[in-house]
């Protein structure tokens, strides 16, 4: 499990990647940082703490403070620097923050309980115009995506 301080650091990254768009709330308000940390640790135990440590190390070098205390423009500068690294393991850390942030926001994650297999339609789906799980699209020719999906039924 990631250190709570690490999750706070990752939250500061999610805040600048997914700040909200006037319709959708911010990723941080939807707890996307928990998704990022869980997947990082699921990939390799301790990886979430390592990501946070790297963000802080870059932040210290650039601005002399921990990542979460940087202003948004400085946080972005840190993420851009990490994402541009030649060393694979450093780039992996930045990739994890970006990919898992978007993955948490735009998949079912914000509305899905994996244990109960219960789905609440994520706000992001309505925003982008995605139906979610459907049994089929009888009207595929017209461009009309067809009847409203039965999203209550997650299991096919």
């Amino acid at each position: 499990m990631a250190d709570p301080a690490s999750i706070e650091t990752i939250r500061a990254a999610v805040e600048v990647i997914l700040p909200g768009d006037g319709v959708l709330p911010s990723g941080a308000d939807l707890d996307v940082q928990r998704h990022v940390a869980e997947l990082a640790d699921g990939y390799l135990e301790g990886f979430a703490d390592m990501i946070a440590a790297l963000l802080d190390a870059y932040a210290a070098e650039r601005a002399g403070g921990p990542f979460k205390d940087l202003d948004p423009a400085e946080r972005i500068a840190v993420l851009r620097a990490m994402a541009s690294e030649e060393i694979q393991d450093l780039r992996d850390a930045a990739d994890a923050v970006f990919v898992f942030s978007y993955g948490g926001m735009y998949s079912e994650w914000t509305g899905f309980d994996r244990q109960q297999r219960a789905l609440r339609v994520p706000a992001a789906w309505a925003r982008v115009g995605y139906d979610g799980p459907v049994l089929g699209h009888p009207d595929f020719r017209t461009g009309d995506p067809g009847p409203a999906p039965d999203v209550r039924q997650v299991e096919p």
Partner: protein
Amino acid sequence: MTDVIIVGAGGGGPVVAKELAERGIAVRMLEAGPWLDPSKDFSRLEDDMNGIVDGRLRWGPSDRTKPPWMRRRDGAGLILQAAGVGGTTLHYNAIAPRAYPRSFDEWPFPYEELVPWYERVEEFLPVVQVAELSTKDQVFADGCEAAGLKRSDERDCNEAVWRPTHNAILPIATMKAGVPLRYPEVDGCTMCGHCLQGCPHPLGAPTQKKAKRATNVSYVPAAMATGNCEIIANAFATRIMFEDAGGGRARARGVAWRDAITGDEHEAEASVVVLAGGSVESPRLWLNSGLPNATDAVGRFFTMHLQDLVTGFFDRETNPNVGQVTMARADFPGYGTFWAQGYGPQAFAAAVAGIGRGFWDDPSPPPYDFRGRFYGEEAMRTIASYARSLTIVVSTDDEAIAANRITLDPDWPADEHGAVPLVTYHPTEESKRRQDWLCAKAAGVLRAAGATRVHRTDPGVFITHLMSTMRIGSDPATSVCDPSGEAHQVERLFVGDCSALPNSLGGPNPTLTAQALAARTASNIADRYFR
């Protein structure tokens, strides 16, 4: 006693299993991952199914609280492969094109010799050319026509054309208003758009009648129906058992495996062993077993398709979530191929903002308006255009070179299945040139279709379609298997998956060709050892 043990029940292994079992040969097939039930286990949700760390279709053990199986990487980015009965066909698009005939200049036999095996697989799966297009594919087709590409309906491809795809998906079901979307009222593809998450449709259909013809619903049931095939899921092969055959050669005599749930170790003998664990695990297993490797050819000539994504944004709905995920493609022999790609918003967000090299506000030379990844409100507003976007996936004719290879990583701790694989891949300048050419062409198709803005992902080395690490060939210095599919240095050991392909086929999706070659190899096994 088992006659043949097959390691891996992905795209290729079940083809070998069905072909042998039908001939009365007793087959045991080991699969490292779980054996999922499409009707119960395929939720159609992107993160639940496709999550690379803990999705059901990841490369990892069936217990999703455990980490995925480790691959170390040098130059290689994300690797997309799935564990489980069905392997990567569980989440493939099911596009089933043949190789470009011209790519056979690197094969040890002519294209015409593979054609009857293509036909055999195409008839069985079946492979069907789509009869109608969904919106996204019609947009793609309109762009191709406007860009001057001619339509072709042929399976053999020798010139630049666009084609309604030949897919390993049942024909589109007749769906009438008021009739429930369930079997047997509907029979065939319901155009749900969830191909990448594993196909559970039509609802209520028996496994062998599911629309997308992944091997778990096609070759596996057919192999089982013979009564001559046993499948053991959650069985991770750890060692090929062998004996000295003299002259530096070995003779395979069985397989040892570990139960990925209990940790129990097993082994069994067989007359013939077939490797079909994919282009990373097959060389890893060979090297971890200590099999002879005098020419150091094992694991070399790793090819993939150096994929890229080019996305157009339109003033009208394109519905990337509707229909078979790919129903139209364009072919450019000498460069590669590209196709219309339907997917969900998670994959879309990653493609346009999450995984690219560089950032949207970096200078982007034409024909792209922007490239790479981004963040912030601008990124979220662009992602909100999902329903008015069309992504084209580019698949490059990737040069096969010896330096791109699978080895064992000396610097990383072994896992419970032995030393872990190291995937080394650095594209050649020629492969990168072809990729750039295809991306520019894709941008042209999107603009001709009316795109107002065009984005290139430029993901670096994004690995799908892993091929050629155990390739067939006449020269043992540059190939692992002889033209029949049997290892040059190990009697009674064959290869039956994408790793046996001699090159990247010119760019087309490799599964059908790997399956045709696997069917041919199975016939060779039967003729040589079970007459």
